[in-house]
């Protein structure tokens, strides 16, 4: 395989020079992001990549980067993209890691094949294709890691924002914060119903002070939770309805007359205590 060996020869012969050029290319491209980059790390990554690239090029005529021989290279690039995605690099800056290798490689190719323009064009084309594929691969991995980060944060948000609190014997409270979509309502509903079973509570207060907007869908979700709790034998009180929300609900024609609603959590709690037959008295001040 004379073609692929030519790339390999150049890589081997000029590794140190290419590495230095490459590192300076990268530093130049990322001049305004010096807070994220560090030269030593770039060099280490570059050296590792060149080493793996040489091994991979030996096996195959540098065509199919999805082949098994290219796995170490792909893994290495995936690690680089992932760490860059976590650090907050943009996709172009991440892909730049691979693309900036083009210039140093082309310079050396040109020196090597000055006498044979046809072979030079051929080699340039091959390397371009190869590096483009690897560059796209880094972007792909970058995108995937970003999606993973987003998914994980969503999950954390879901877990964080759905507590069910026991206020009193037989009284539960669910302070809802943030927009209510189907997935969240489902989780809230399950948590609430399970807690009703566990504590044997008769009254649940759903506080929507932290819900920014209530539309027909949100109202429907709330009513579902209330109906489900009722089926299990617990009453629900919805509290924390702000004036704007009260207006929206009426304008939308949502029927909340079947549910007890209160303006504040305190009112809801008082109602709950009355239903349980508990009364509070303020102790007489002394003197």
């Amino acid at each position, binding site marked *: 395989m004379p073609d692929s060996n030519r790339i390999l020869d150049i890589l081997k012969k000029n590794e140190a020079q290419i590495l230095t050029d490459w590192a300076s290319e990268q530093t130049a491209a990322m001049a305004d992001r010096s807070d994220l980059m560090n030269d030593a790390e770039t060099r280490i990554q570059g050296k590792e990549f060149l080493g793996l690239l040489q091994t991979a090029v030996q096996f195959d005529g540098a065509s199919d980067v999805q082949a098994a021989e290219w796995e170490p290279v792909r893994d290495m690039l995936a690690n680089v993209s992932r760490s860059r995605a976590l650090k907050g690099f943009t996709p172009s800056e991440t892909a730049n890691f691979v693309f900036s290798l083009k210039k140093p490689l082309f310079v050396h190719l040109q020196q090597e094949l000055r006498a044979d323009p046809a072979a030079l064009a051929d080699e340039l084309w091959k390397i371009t294709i190869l590096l483009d594929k690897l560059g796209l691969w880094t972007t792909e991995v970058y995108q995937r890691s970003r999606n993973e980060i987003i998914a994980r944060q969503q999950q954390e948000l879901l877990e964080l924002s759905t507590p069910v609190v026991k206020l009193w014997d037989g009284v539960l409270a669910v302070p809802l914060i943030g927009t209510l979509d189907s997935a969240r309502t489902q989780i809230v509903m399950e948590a609430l*119903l399970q807690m009703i*079973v566990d504590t044997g509570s*008769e009254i649940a207060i759903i506080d929507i002070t932290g819900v920014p907007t209530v539309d027909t869908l949100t109202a429907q979700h709330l009513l579902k939770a209330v109906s489900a709790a009722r089926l299990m034998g617990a009453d629900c009180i919805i509290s924390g309805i702000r004036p704007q929300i009260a207006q929206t609900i009426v304008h939308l024609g949502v029927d909340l007359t079947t549910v007890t609603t209160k303006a504040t959590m305190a009112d809801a709690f008082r109602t709950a205590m009355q239903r349980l037959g508990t009364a509070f008295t303020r102790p007489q001040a002394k003197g």
Partner: protein
Amino acid sequence: MERIPILRMGDVLLVTIQVDMYDRLAMTLQDDLTIRISETGAHGVLIDISSLDIVDSFIGRVLSNISLMASVLDATTVVVGMQPAVAITLVELGLSLQGVKTALNVERGMAMLRASTHLVDEKAEDAHREN
């Protein structure tokens, strides 16, 4: 044929569903229960579904119907111990069993029935004494 037992406790009929409900069984229960209510003159029916894991729309409607039929026969029905998953399923199916009384467990359900049949009991006792 399999049947769900209906137990009589004074003024109240006690039904504990401990097997998976299928359509025939639900219809049989509906028949048996209405017959027993009119035979015994019971004023309360307590249906415990705490060991029921799966409820479909048909069973949901039968429960609702039983409650309505009992109220026609002057008996109050309380469904107790519904599992969270079952409650969610019924709500998602659009069956919120309007008009059916519910309670968390048998104890609360009995208290509820006693409260609602209390006046009836007193009247019956008064009538008994006069005789």
